[in-house]
């Protein structure tokens, strides 16, 4: 192709397009939102429809500490991205590590909650509708946290090896969008499962 199909006399404005990473991640997040919507709708639809116990109000305790940890990890990942954007790699590593710890605490907390429910309260996926919908919705969210944590651990390893540089700011920021999404979904799951559903 010749350099210009037609050489017009007009001056060319600068050609700027949106970043691929952001657009791709936003599209993925919209798709994930649709998946979560279906699970949330199923949860709400089946509130109070279980034919046998245990019921949510008998066994569920509000995981306040867990929620604080997960939501504050949104702040720490934001600080990490800002640090990398302004070329402070050490500060990035520190905030990234804090994010990793907070995410891990959340996941361990969910695991302990499940252990309590399964072995002490006898609630499993097949016990009743509450069990089916609860483990599906909370499990779907925990699965997303796990995927996010795998990404965070990988980036942490690269940071410790000294491979992370300010040029990676864009990628880290795109990844942080996913993490913010996982946190935002938790707000919905928390409201539906522990407040409305109880």
């Amino acid at each position: 192709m010749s350099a210009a199909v037609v050489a017009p006399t007009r001056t060319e404005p600068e050609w700027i397009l949106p970043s691929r990473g952001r657009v791709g991640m936003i599209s993925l997040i919209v798709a994930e939102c649709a998946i979560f919507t279906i699970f949330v709708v199923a949860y709400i639809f089946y509130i109070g429809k279980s034919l046998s116990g245990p019921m949510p109000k008998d066994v569920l305790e509000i995981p306040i500490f867990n929620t604080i940890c997960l939501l504050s990890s949104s702040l720490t990942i934001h600080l990490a991205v800002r640090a990398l954007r302004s070329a402070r790699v050490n500060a990035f590593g520190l905030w990234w590590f804090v994010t990793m710890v907070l995410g891990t605490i959340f996941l361990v907390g969910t695991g302990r909650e499940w252990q309590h429910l399964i072995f002490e309260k006898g609630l499993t996926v097949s016990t009743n509708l509450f069990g089916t919908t609860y483990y599906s919705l909370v499990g779907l969210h925990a699965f997303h946290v796990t995927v996010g944590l795998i990404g965070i651990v990988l980036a942490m390893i690269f940071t410790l090896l000294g491979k992370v540089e300010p040029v990676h700011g864009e990628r880290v920021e795109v990844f942080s969008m996913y993490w913010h999404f996982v946190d935002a979904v938790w707000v919905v799951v928390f409201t539906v499962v522990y407040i409305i559903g109880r």
Partner: protein
Amino acid sequence: MASETIAITGTAEIGRPISERLHDWIVTVDHKKLGILYIVYSLIFLVIGGVEATIIRVQLIVPHNQFVSPQVFNRMMTMHGTTMIFFVAMPILFGFGTYLIPLMIGARDMAFPRLNAFSFWMTAFGGLLLYFSFVGGNGLYGAGNAPDVGWWAYAPLTSRAFSVGHSTDFWTLALLVSGVGSIGTAVNFITTILCMRCPGMTLGKMPLLAWLNLVMGGMVILAVSPLTAAQAMLCIDRYLGGHFFDTQAGGSAVLWMHFFWIFGHPEVYVLIIPAFAFLSEIVPVFSRKPIFGYPVMVAATVCIGFVSLSVWAHHMFTVGMNSYANSFFTITTMAVGVPTGIKIFNWLGTMWGGKIHFRTPMLFCIGFLFQFLIAGLTGIMLGASPFNWQLSGSYFVVAHFHYVIVGGILFALFGAFYYWFPKMSGRMYDEVLGKCHFWLFLIGFHMTFDFMHIPGILGMPRRIYTYEPGRGWEIWNLIVTIGVVFQAAGVLVFVVNLLWSLFKGEPAGNDPWDAWTLEWSTTSPPPDYNFATIPVVHSRRPLWDLKHPEDPDWKYE
């Protein structure tokens, strides 16, 4: 013009061992190779799905026929529907999109080439998984092998009690896996179209094919994700003993219907919008006029995208919803006809006063216009809930949606095949064989699907494996089955034409149609890098500007 090529070492095809060339196709991340892989893969499944349809029609040719058992009939019906929607229509349209979008927007590849390859192989794996059920489906139970729950797989038929063995699991997992592939492709389409356009190609100057595929990508994201979620729930029910759709434990069978049709109806538009896209490229070129009403076309497409997300329950009028839901879904169903009608008028407006060239792609497009109009009209009939109560679940419905899918989508696809075959292969197809294909397929299509409406009105339910004589259905079923012979002959001519032209066709040159979009500015087939220099465009028809520097389009846009 743009036929300059760059020699890249190691790309010469001649003299390389076949194993190495096959290896190239397996590991490729090139959008053109992946597009062709999608298309070839879908064509193979098209033949398989066609054989299943033929078995169904042979069984129904006369009353009390014993060609296949009821069990086999149910499997054929389920596999035909699932194959045609998920492993023919979706991947073939994705294939054309993957091949054409970067070429039409002046890019060298998709935004995420490796995601592109991942999506294709997920889809391919899903199809193989579905067909593996013929081998591995009966498990240890001595139960039926292939899935036989219908392509909607309504609960509680899919529960362990009624679907023993593994056949339903294969169905669920195949759709789950290919759904992940579809979402990946949609993410890739949206990102490519928004972020990879060549300089000067603003959203208002994009080819309509790119615009329509952008809307299609958005719909896939919003519609296929719910199906993936619902399949995950079905897996939880079947493997972990969950109760989502288990009515014995308080679960709801109607919830599955809602989840399935929240996917199922937008899916129709996911398939028809790329067909609209083909028409919007082919009709102007063969009418020798620019498209009539470009902005209205875009607006109508976006409108269809929105409205079609809220029409799903018109598949469920006979389930027993309340009168408000019935009214709402009747009104939205009528409303979605309005932007669709606008598009029909736009194509007619493009043809009006044009110098129409009746080549094979154009013939298929004209066929589309007539048949899609009739399909839309029977759609309006079925969308009125009182009428629907009478005919839901009858052959009238089967005739209606085959009119959309075969008369609309498949005709547009054949048109697209003939239109872009010279670009993809570098050779012209045979015009006489192409016209033979058109007329044979047209006759077969109308024999089969026009006459299929009548037994539906006379009360013949769908999905029955045989029927009693003396109800006035015999003659119609006979004609319908005879039509299949013509359709099969048409497809045979198509395949012969494809293979013959691939090896012996006349060299096509870069631009056999004197067309206006960027894919025709590069060689046929395009080189690995698409464009030696990234083009710069100033109007919706960059090649027109190039060919007519004295009267370029950008002066008027």
